[in-house]
């Protein structure tokens, strides 16, 4: 499975033009980008977005249809701040797609879990799952109501949709993982993306309840093609950029041990 063939030409930068900007909250924006070159991009795969003169950063698009790509970006440091300053009509450069995304080819009931901007690849996956016509529940965990990202979109896809807020300002109050524990038994597959703590807890739950999971991890990505070694997942030798960012429970259990 791992570190197998890749078409290196994904490393060539291409670009798109910002067509629309959505302000989700003060720290998260989405950008609809009309792309110049269609490149296949599965939900959960990532691109490296480059603003010439600044750095390139890994982002997992929250929607893609071959012509329109949406990215959902949280302001965190210099590059994401610069992205937030972009305007309609601006050109953005990117390369990819990199890595392995979520596999949704099996029929079954899917539990989709996004924490914060981690909901990006999850909502894109939700679109795919609806295309296939599988059953799924979409769960988004955020701090407070105003941070919610894709609740309406998930609903409009016809999915059972649950918002979990830490402060209870909307939806269910509490930690998303606590809610998941209540419902996990009803699902065959869990797909998750979000903060590290959430991911590790989800892995534990999936192991406990015997649910297959696929989780998207973050790390410092520099080369994107599995040669520089900067994106190692803990001390496993696994590379987020190439073996991941989405890892399945089988691999995670083998490499991370019993968590």
């Amino acid at each position, binding site marked *: 499975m791992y*570190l197998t*063939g*890749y078409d290196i030409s994904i490393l060539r930068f291409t670009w798109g033009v910002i067509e629309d900007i959505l302000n989700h909250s003060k720290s998260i924006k989405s950008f609809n980008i009309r792309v110049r070159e269609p490149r296949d991009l599965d939900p959960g795969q990532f691109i490296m977005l480059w603003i010439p003169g600044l750095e390139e950063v890994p982002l997992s698009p929250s929607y893609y249809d071959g012509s329109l790509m949406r990215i959902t970006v949280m302001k965190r440091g210099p590059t994401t701040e610069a992205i937030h300053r972009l305007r309609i009509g601006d050109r953005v450069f990117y*390369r990819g797609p990199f890595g392995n995304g979520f596999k949704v080819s099996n029929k079954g009931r899917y539990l989709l879990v996004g924490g914060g901007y981690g909901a990006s690849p999850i909502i894109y996956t939700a679109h795919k799952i609806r295309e296939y016509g599988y059953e799924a529940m979409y769960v988004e965990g955020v701090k407070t109501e105003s941070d919610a990202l894709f609740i309406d979109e998930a609903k409009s896809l016809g999915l059972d949709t649950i918002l979990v807020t830490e402060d209870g300002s909307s939806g269910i109050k509490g930690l998303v993982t606590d809610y998941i524990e209540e419902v996990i038994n009803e699902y065959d597959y869990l797909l998750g993306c979000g903060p590290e703590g959430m991911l590790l807890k989800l892995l534990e739950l999936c192991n406990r309840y015997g649910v297959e999971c696929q989780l998207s991890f973050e790390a410092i990505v520099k080369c994107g093609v599995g040669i520089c070694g900067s994106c190692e997942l803990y001390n496993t030798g696994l590379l987020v950029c190439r073996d991941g960012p989405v890892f399945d429970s089988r691999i995670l259990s083998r490499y991370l041990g019993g968590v």
Partner: protein
Amino acid sequence: MDLRVRLGKLELRNPIILASGILGLSGSQLRRVGEYGFGGLTTKSYTIEARRGYDTPILAYVKCGLLNAVGLENPGYRELARVRESLKDVGIPIIVSIAGSKVDEFTTIASYVDELGFNAIELNLSCPHVEGMGLELGDDPNYVYKIVSGVSSIVSIPVYVKIGLHRDIMATVGKSLDGGAEGITAINTIRALAIDVYARKPVLSNVYGGLSGPAIHPIAVRIVYDIYREYGIPIIGVGGVSSWDDVIEFILAGASAVGVGTVIASKGLDVVREILDGIKTYMMDEGFKELSELIGYANK
């Protein structure tokens, strides 16, 4: 079919070595890479202090390879103790690459590497994109002599000098050998630049990077051929291997072992088996029993 080769004092189960800088940042990475069938592994170049490396982009796509300007990112040489620890039972020779700017940096790291029980040292005197710790060291044969003799005189394991396109390659090689190097690793990447025509800016944050991949292969073969012909020493041929025939070409030119790097970005680590299978088929078809018969054959 016997794929074993002697690389100076080292015996390798096969000639394929992981080139320095590819997945050699940690013991766990090297451990994993070791499972793919390599004959030996080279670590990332280690320096005295930890280095963050350059800002992204650190890689640029070009039509026949890659440019990289990683900037010698590494956690500092003291981490090598942990690297050694996790590679205890990996069963293949580990070569530690060392970068630095002064003689005592090289000797400090080298003696530590020797103590830790690694199998060989590679002195990286040829990085084309880090000022003061790269190509210019190897460009100066007298300084090469100082570094190599400094290191060789205090370690018991073999020392290889990794060279690039230096001003006078043969002088650099000659002084390396005078200084006590057992052999040469040739070649490092070649200084180059890529400009994105839409961004109208250099792609790499560092502007300049090192060209690797198929592009540099015929240049590397030339240099290996020249060194073998002149000195007949152990050589690790590196540069642009993309399939088994490139490995055979290096060996025919005079390499005893062959490093692979960039091809891993495209074919992944499985490329090792693909290469070894290709070599076996070739040897069978051409009637060779021992790969070592082929070393330097094209010089005859």
